[in-house]
C-alpha cells in the first residue's frame, strides 16, 4: 500500500514536470507525458528523493516562501558586499575558516542550509562533518574563540525557517 502510494506520487510529479517543460495542452503531448510518467515510475524506481509526500503540505510551502524572501534579501546584500570588497582599491578582506554548529537534523535541511550559507554575505561552506559546518569567512570580525556568536551570525538566520520546512 505504501509503495503504491509512492508510485502514484512519482507519476504525478513526473507528469507535472513534463507539462511544465512542454507548456502546451496538445492532446498528443499530454498522452506522451502520461505514458512517460507511468514508464519512469515503474521502471526507474527510487529515482526521486525520499519524503516526496511533503510537497503536499501547505504549512511547509508557507515557510518555504518565508525562507525564499529572507534568502533573497541576504543574497542581494551579499552581492553589494562583494562589489564593495572587489572594487575597493585596498581589498578590505580578513579571511579565515571557522566552525559552526547546526541544530538541524535531516539531510535535506543541512544541504539547503549549506547552500544558503554559500549565497549569503562573505561565507562559503567548505565541508560538513556530522553537525559541524566548516565555513570560509571573508571578513572574520567576531572574536575567534566565540563559537556561539559565530554560529548566530552565520547559520542562525536560516535555521528558524529551514527547520519548519524540512524537519
Amino acid at each position, binding site marked *: 500500500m505504501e509503495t503504491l502510494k509512492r508510485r502514484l506520487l512519482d507519476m504525478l*510529479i*513526473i507528469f507535472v*514536470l*513534463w507539462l511544465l*517543460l*512542454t507548456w502546451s495542452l*496538445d492532446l*498528443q*503531448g499530454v498522452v*506522451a507525458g502520461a505514458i*512517460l510518467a507511468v514508464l*519512469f515510475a515503474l521502471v*526507474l*524506481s*527510487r*529515482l*526521486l*528523493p525520499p519524503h516526496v509526500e511533503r510537497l503536499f503540505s501547505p504549512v511547509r510551502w508557507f515557510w518555504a516562501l518565508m525562507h525564499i524572501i529572507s534568502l533573497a534579501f541576504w543574497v542581494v546584500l551579499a552581492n553589494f558586499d562583494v562589489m564593495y570588497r572587489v572594487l575597493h582599491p585596498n581589498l578590505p578582506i580578513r579571511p579565515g575558516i571557522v566552525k559552526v554548529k547546526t541544530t538541524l537534523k535531516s*539531510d*535535506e535541511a*543541512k*544541504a*539547503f542550509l*549549506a*547552500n544558503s550559507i554559500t549565497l549569503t554575505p562573505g561565507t562559503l*561552506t567548505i*565541508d*560538513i562533518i556530522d553537525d559541524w559546518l566548516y565555513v570560509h569567512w571573508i571578513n572574520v570580525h567576531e572574536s575567534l574563540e566565540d563559537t556561539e556568536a559565530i554560529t548566530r551570525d552565520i547559520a542562525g538566520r536560516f535555521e528558524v525557517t529551514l527547520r519548519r520546512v524540512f524537519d
Partner: protein
Amino acid sequence: MKGMTIIVKTITDFVAAFIVVFGAYIVLYGHLTPGGGFAGGVIIACAFILLMLAHGREVAFARLPERAAHIMDSSGALAFLIIGWLGVTGGFFFLNVFGRGDMFRLLSSGMILPLNIAIAFKVGSSLFLVFAALAMFRRRSFRAMIEEELS
C-alpha cells in the same frame, strides 16, 4: 566515506529526476526543435553519471542495473535496424512506412520519432556503461607504468 558530502548527494537526488524528464523531452520533441536522439540520450546518461559521481557506483547501478543497461544498449541498436528494414516492405531501406500526421504536433514526422527513441536508448545506456568501465580502471602513477613498460 563513500561518495561526496551530504550536500552534493541531496542536491543530486533533487535534480536527477528533472534531468531524466528533460532528456526525454529532448528526445520526443527532437523533430520539432533542435535536439534528437543523440543529444537526449547523452542528457539521460548524464543524470546517471551524476548519481555515480555523487553516491558511488553501487547506488547508480541500483537505479539502473548493469544488466538492464546492457539489454537496452543492444535492443536500441536492434530496434533501429528493424525500423530501417520495415521500409523494405514498401520498396527500399529506410522508406517511411508510417503516416505523416499534422504539422507541428508530436506525431508529425513518420519514422523519425521511433528512430530517435531507438538512438536514445542506445546512446544513453552505452555512454553510462562506458563511463562506468573507464572509471573502474585504477589510476596508477606514470612512473609505475613506465617501469612496467621497460621491464
